């Protein structure tokens, strides 16, 4: 009954159940924080050039370039269980074949509360391409700023902080870099 083995067994069992309860409590506590910060995204008119992409070695594919302005105060998303924010700008459009597309064109990982007050201008970090070879006849694109809150322990949550008011049209392809 009071052997060393029994004692060790009891202590570790008690410790592990305490840890479990504590972790569960922390995970549940982040459900209480329901911040939904809003910001603004402004996208400048796009430019399209033909380029080589990794996907199709010997084929030219149209690539769209754009600049954007972001202002958003995402500090409220940081609570004691927030490990980091994964922030991304997403383009949504329907192409000429009617296929609905979503593409992440820029992302940023934010790890501290101080970095979370955003005001920046950026350009697309990833190649923005259509499924086929060109953006011809694609519907204008909406852009949105989204975030993924990643906790130390518990559930991952998603949200949208900003969205363009009017869709941005795809321009004609430019033949040469000006």
């Amino acid at each position, binding site marked *: 009954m009071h052997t060393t083995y029994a004692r060790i067994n009891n202590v570790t069992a008690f410790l592990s159940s305490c840890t479990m309860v504590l*972790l569960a409590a922390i*995970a549940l506590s982040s459900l209480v924080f329901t911040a939904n910060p809003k910001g603004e995204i402004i996208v400048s008119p796009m430019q399209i050039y033909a380029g080589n992409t*990794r*996907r199709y070695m010997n084929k030219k594919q149209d690539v769209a370039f754009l600049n954007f302005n972001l202002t958003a105060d995402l500090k409220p998303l940081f609570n004691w269980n927030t*490990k*980091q924010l*994964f922030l*991304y700008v*997403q383009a949504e459009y329907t192409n000429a074949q*009617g*296929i*609905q*597309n*979503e*593409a*992440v064109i820029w*992302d940023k*990982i934010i*790890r501290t509360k101080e970095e979370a007050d955003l005001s920046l201008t950026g350009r697309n970090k*990833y190649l923005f391409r259509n*499924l086929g070879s060109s953006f011809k006849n694609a519907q204008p694109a909406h852009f949105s700023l*989204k975030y*993924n809150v*990643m*906790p*130390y*322990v*518990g*559930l*991952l949550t*998603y949200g949208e902080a900003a969205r363009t008011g009017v869709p941005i049209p795809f321009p004609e392809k430019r033949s040469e870099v000006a």
Partner: protein
Amino acid sequence: MFADELRSLRRLGLRHILLQILNFASVLATGLMIWKGLGLACNTESPIVVVLSGSMEPAFYRGDLLFLTNPASQRYQTGDITVYKIPGADIPIVHRVMETHDDVSNKKGLVTASPLGQRQRILTKGDNNPVDDIDLYQGLEWLERRHIVGKVRGFLPYVGYVTIAMNDFPQLKYALLGGLGLLALIQRE
């Protein structure tokens, strides 16, 4: 050293040993049932996975535990972190969805009841990787729903490191299993 244990084992008799074996088997069976039941509820073949690589750092490190679901009624969206398995590759990969392309029904006049009836082409990338995953797809151009095991919903750090340690040092696994088995046999309660 083991003489004592051996003597107590002899004293307990065959019937007791059989009972303990039965208990052990029922513990194993319960574990398996919970695992499969969870898989059924989450609609995925493995509802809990262990992170094996650093390609999602600093979000997920080696040994972190991820909880997956794969709801049959939801499409994948950009920003979702998916676990996928390419046919021919034996290790599933945990990466984030960067692009989705949803086809519309191409049969004239017919509309699918659910958006899932339509083909969805997906491109993924690891947060810590500079480029997307095309090179990992082993010749596939896009990822599709059938390659995806599930999307990450919950996160528990470090706990999965036990399984990594057991894979890296198989002796540990056998020692642990043997020890547990022996304990189950000897214990009398």
